């Protein structure tokens, strides 16, 4: 019966008008830039297109392509890579398949289908030798980051051989080992260093905002409720360890612990806060007030307890007045109490989690925001969260404030001076990428939290740069953005009047705003990140947003 079905499937495959005889597979996911070249003709490839024999697949700096062959074999081609499928033979009746490919540069993950079950089923030609893969999942990195050698990693499976002509250069037969190219030009098998996996995963991960060409991707709840998750991670397995043992082991394990690292590395963190104040139905953006002298912001201050929970925030806000009007206040964590300089405090919230309008933690929204944010590195040295209150202001209006805060170890003036001394005017010294998070009042579109991407360039000698906030509110928590598919803001920023940080104007189609910020150290890495606050207004106040941004140094495109 199985043979009949397999034969019928094969006939369907051959009979399909979209499946030409020269076709080897399809592009199952594509992030641009990705191109295919056959016989000198170049095309931009998209998701769901056929890949043919000898088609050269090339990707740019953010390109990512998964090629799915008819037998289930996949090639995940990373950025700046070059792959050609030279030959593919598949016999569904016999359940055998053979593939030959040429991979000349970049990073690749190979997962075999039926080719894995066929002797001599997989041959990949590379500049460093010819690989034979037998029943295995393999990572290949021919262009690793500086300081990392070229390497081939056996993730799982039987074996990988590397030959040059008749000479065997190396062989892997135990998962968790890598062939690395030494300085002497020879390959040696070593236990795969943990960093290899992290680098490959970063290279093969789509950037925030990319979609692989799919009209929509899965959501966390869809994954959680799927049959895959039901079988793979069944709910509530009885743990073999007690909670205390797990916690202790998590401490001992070399993972990110953003709370402890942050507290250890950042004494008295300071930062910025942006918020929306709603007064009589009108949303007014709030930012850190400047100190009135050299234009530096009076920084938001956050205090953390021994467990790394934020317990106190002091936010100097300005609505364009020279004095703190609504809230120069110190607020103790919780939902009650606090002191205010002016006005009476009603209910308030302050924590790392988003609260809904009733001051109840909204984990769904927090989780959704979590997956929209891209700056994983930021979590090690920048903290951000939500805050707000509602209460009576001095002018007897009842106001509501919803905001974000971000804090870290700000780079000092002296440290920035040292960086300036090493900088050349006109060059881009630092390129930051990260996220922007803000409260939005979209008028009839409602009030909600939105996210976007942030990019910034900077020259320490010139004390100037550019900032872009892209794709803001393109995919905000359930609410439909009424203005299109994301807001794009750009601006020039500079340190003016002796500022330590920077500030500037933001412009966008139909609106403008203001941005200010500072540099953040990550341990001994000076100005490793940036953070700040921003606001912008579209039209006549039809759309108002205020929030914070943060980012980490990356290599420029």
């Amino acid at each position, binding site marked *: 019966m199985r043979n009949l079905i397999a034969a019928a499937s094969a006939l369907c495959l051959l009979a399909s008008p979209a499946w030409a005889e020269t076709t080897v597979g399809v592009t199952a996911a594509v992030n641009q830039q990705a191109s295919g070249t056959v016989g000198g003709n170049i095309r931009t490839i998209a998701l769901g297109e056929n890949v043919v024999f000898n088609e050269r697949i090339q990707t740019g700096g953010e390109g990512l392509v998964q090629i799915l062959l008819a037998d289930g074999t996949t090639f995940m081609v990373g950025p700046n890579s070059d792959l050609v499928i030279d030959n593919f033979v598949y016999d569904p009746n016999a359940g055998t398949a053979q593939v030959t490919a040429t991979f000349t540069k970049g990073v690749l993950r190979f997962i075999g289908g039926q080719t894995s079950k066929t002797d001599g089923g997989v041959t990949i030609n590379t500049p460093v030798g010819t690989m034979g893969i037998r029943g295995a999942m393999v990572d290949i990195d021919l262009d690793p980051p500086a300081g990392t050698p070229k390497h081939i990693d056996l993730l799982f499976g039987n074996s990988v051989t590397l030959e040059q002509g008749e000479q065997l250069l190396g062989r892997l037969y135990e998962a968790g080992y890598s062939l690395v190219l030494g300085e002497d030009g020879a390959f040696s*098998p070593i236990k795969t260093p943990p960093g290899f996996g992290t680098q490959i995963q970063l290279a093969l991960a789509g950037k925030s905002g990319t979609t692989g060409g799919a009209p929509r991707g899965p959501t966390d709840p869809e994954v959680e409720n799927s049959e895959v998750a039901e079988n793979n991670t069944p709910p509530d397995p009885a743990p073999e360890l007690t909670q205390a043992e797990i916690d202790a082991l998590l401490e001992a394990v070399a993972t990110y612990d953003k709370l402890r690292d942050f507290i250890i590395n950042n004494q008295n963190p300071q930062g910025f806060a942006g918020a929306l104040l709603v007064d009589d139905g009108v949303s007014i953006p709030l930012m850190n007030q400047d100190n009135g002298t050299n234009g530096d912001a009076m920084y938001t201050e956050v205090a953390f307890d021994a467990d790394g929970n934020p317990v106190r925030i002091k936010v100097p806000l300005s609505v364009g007045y020279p004095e703190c009007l609504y809230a120069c206040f110190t607020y103790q964590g919780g939902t009650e109490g606090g002191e205010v300089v002016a006005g009476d405090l009603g209910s308030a919230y302050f924590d790392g989690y988003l609260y809904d309008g009733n001051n109840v933690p909204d984990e769904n929204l927090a989780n959704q925001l*979590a997956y929209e944010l891209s700056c994983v590195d930021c979590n090690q040295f920048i903290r951000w969260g939500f805050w707000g209150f509602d209460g009576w202001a001095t002018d007897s209006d009842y106001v509501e404030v919803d905001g974000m805060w971000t804090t870290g170890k700000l780079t000092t003036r002296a440290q920035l001076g040292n960086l300036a001394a090493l900088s050349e005017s006109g060059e881009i010294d630092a390129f930051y990428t990260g996220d922007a998070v803000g409260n939005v009042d979209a008028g009839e579109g409602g009030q909600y939290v939105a996210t976007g991407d942030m990019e910034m360039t900077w020259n320490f000698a010139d004390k100037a740069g550019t900032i872009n906030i892209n794709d803001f509110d393109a995919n905000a928590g359930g609410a439909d953005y009424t203005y299109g598919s994301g807001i794009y803001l750009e601006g020039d920023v500079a340190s003016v009047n002796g500022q330590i940080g920077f500030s500037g104007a933001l412009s966008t189609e139909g609106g403008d705003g203001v941005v200010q910020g500072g540099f953040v150290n990550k341990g001994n890495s000076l100005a490793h990140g940036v953070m700040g606050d921003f606001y912008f207004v579209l039209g006549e106040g039809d759309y108002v947003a205020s929030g914070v941004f943060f980012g980490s140094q990356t290599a420029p495109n």
Partner: protein
Amino acid sequence: MVAVALLLALAPTAGYAQGVDPSSTQQVPGAAGIDRAAVEAQRAQLFQAMLADPSNIDLAFQYAALSEQLGDLEAAISTLERMLVFAPGLPRLQFELGVLYYRLASWNTAKSYFETVLAQPAVPEDIRTRIGTYMATIEQRTEAAISYGEVGVGVRYQTNANAGPATTSIELGGLPFELDEGALGTPDYNGYVTARYHHSIDLENQGDRFDIDFSGYGALYAEQTDLDTGIVDISLGPNFNLAAIGIDNGRLAVHGDFGAALLGGNPYLTSAGLGADLSLLLDARTRFTLSGDAVHEEYYDSDLRPSSSDRSGQTYSAGSGLQYLLTPDVTLFAAMDLNRTVARTDYYSNWQYGASGGVAILFGDAGTERVSLSLSGGVSRQLADAPDPAMLTDEAEDELVSYVSAGLAVPLMAGIVVQSNVTYSVSDSNYDISNYDNLAASLGLSKKF
């Protein structure tokens, strides 16, 4: 007789195959109780639909689910990694991928995914806890040296602790003899302690290890103190990954073995030898083992046993075994062995061959400490080279020993397990004095560490 009694006493511990790595498997058995052919056919159809519409999330989820059911975790991984391109950074998807790689023992990649999830600003507490458990296991499994062991203590009652005949009237050389009452089969209680320890050092040569195994057994009898026993055994040597020579899922352990035993408070036996064990995973459910040993045994005379030293000599053993995972909860096992003993005296020299088999059943949910029931039985025949002159016969001894055994292990808490066992054995020999039967029941506690 004493040796057989000792062997039966150690039978519950026979699960520790010497020098064999139980942790390495390159194939993942699929879900139990599914019609594989039907699921394969359904998956093939889904795959064709997925080729035509690779961005279809529903198709992808279904295909990944069927792949996981069939144990094809690689296909599930490639499908979920494609979905991750559609939804970059999705924490739950990265968690599922981490677990899939974990199940394939691809520790580095699993750890990368888990670390990425933990770095998210808002990780649900249950996910964080589960990742912690996985990461803890990864840390243990990737350590350069792995150790584990078990200690146990218990009480055993035997209807015939000294393996003596049921009657004092026996025939020797065709003539009737009356045995001393003390030689009769006699019931007795004994307390016992057991200890096992395994230490394995990763030689960082693609799966080669150096293994050290220790086992110990001690028993003190209430009445028959001449049966008081103390045994220690140490085995050490390299354990090679045979994938180096193209044999996938195979291991070869070569070991030196050293042992010593006390009996009745006196030195009874020391031994030293060499052995080799071959273990092959034939498929995801079947393991085949082959072993061989050559051991020199030196027995010592004592007041209780003035001619023990006549037993000294060499023993050469060969054995094979098969373990088959009928379902994830049920394992069938069978073994055969052949031994040749060349002792100082020819009536203690013998050929021995035997076979045994059984089933081990696990109850309860996977991932928890589970109740296990083991049912086994076996037969063994021993043929002496020459007649025992004390038996006044020109027939060499021909003894057939058979047994059935049932064991139940019930976990209590904190790694402590209640172990119970009932074994009935019968010896049928042409030497009356060797005819006996014995019912033994034991109850004890063991703790893994």
